[in-house]
């Protein structure tokens, strides 16, 4: 662990330096395994938020109520501690800058993590594929990487960020203030004629409803990649 910092009141960033790391693809995850003194083990998957080009590996961890792994990682972990990782793994929810099609990214809460790796990868590779990110958060304070996303999009006409704040909004907010639904997707998503690739990440029910919405709008299900976040590990 090289550093940690709070990103929101419930989410922490953990920067890691990994010996023998052979690199990852944007969208992959690692499994973090903790072993207690009595030998009890618990393992959870965390998406990598850093670009493949970055010097350190960044994971973001949301503190879950009763989360035995997330509470340790958020509250107890210190710089210099060592973690046991398995990975990088996962070839399905992966985007490479060479893929080409317009990208539609839809994130719910900490589901931004693997999408952030894609956005940072595109930026680092000076790739000009048009990207729209629809990002659902409870409030502006809960929107992870909001400053970084907004500054990247203001400097890049091909990268649009659309926020929806479902519980509380900043003063004077004129944007979306509800959960993602088909009407919102119809306004935000690339028309199906553009043959966009969609990546959706967030809590299971969020992902399910967005994926169904995109299929309703005519996206072939093979062009809609999903990554559901759950509280358990294997």
């Amino acid at each position, binding site marked *: 662990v090289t550093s940690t910092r709070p990103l929101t009141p419930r989410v922490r960033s953990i920067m890691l330096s990994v010996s023998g790391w052979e690199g990852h693809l944007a969208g992959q995850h690692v499994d973090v395994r903790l072993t207690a003194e009595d030998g009890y083990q618990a393992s959870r998957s965390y998406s990598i938020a850093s670009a493949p080009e970055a010097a350190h590996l960044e994971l973001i961890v949301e503190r879950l109520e009763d989360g035995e792994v997330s509470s340790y990682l958020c509250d107890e972990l210190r710089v210099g501690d060592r973690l046991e990782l398995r990975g990088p793994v*996962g070839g*399905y929810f992966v985007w490479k800058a060479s893929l080409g099609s317009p990208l539609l990214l839809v994130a719910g809460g900490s589901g931004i993590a693997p999408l952030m790796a894609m956005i940072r990868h595109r930026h680092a590779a000076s790739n000009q594929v048009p990207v729209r990110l629809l990002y659902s958060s409870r409030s502006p304070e809960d929107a992870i990487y909001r400053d970084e996303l907004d500054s990247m999009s203001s400097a890049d006409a091909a990268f649009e960020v659309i926020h929806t704040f479902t519980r509380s909004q900043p003063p004077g907010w004129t944007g979306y203030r509800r959960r993602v639904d088909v009407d919102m997707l119809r306004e935000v998503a690339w028309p199906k004629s553009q043959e966009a690739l969609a990546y959706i990440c967030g809590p*299971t029910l969020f992902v399910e409803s967005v994926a169904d919405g995109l299929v309703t709008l005519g996206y072939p299900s093979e062009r809609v990649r999903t990554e*559901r976040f*759950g509280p*358990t590990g*294997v």
Partner: protein
Amino acid sequence: MDSASMKLDGNALAGLLREIFSLEMTMARVTCGGCSKTGYLGGLPAYVQAPGAVIRCPACDIAMMRIVHDNGHYWLDCRGTRSFQISKA
């Protein structure tokens, strides 16, 4: 939590599959043994509650793969899968 909100993607099993197989399995094309629907393993519904992991067919809901691991053994039951098409790279 109800079972609908415990559903993940096959991609969540990537680390476990990587321990068993030498090739990347989440991009394998699998064919359901029940209804013949095909899909990427990484995109199929997965349930990972202890004691094991189950991959189901999104169309007919049959259990395509069951994986249990404990005490240095992996138990792999694939009777619900007709075939795996696995790419070398």
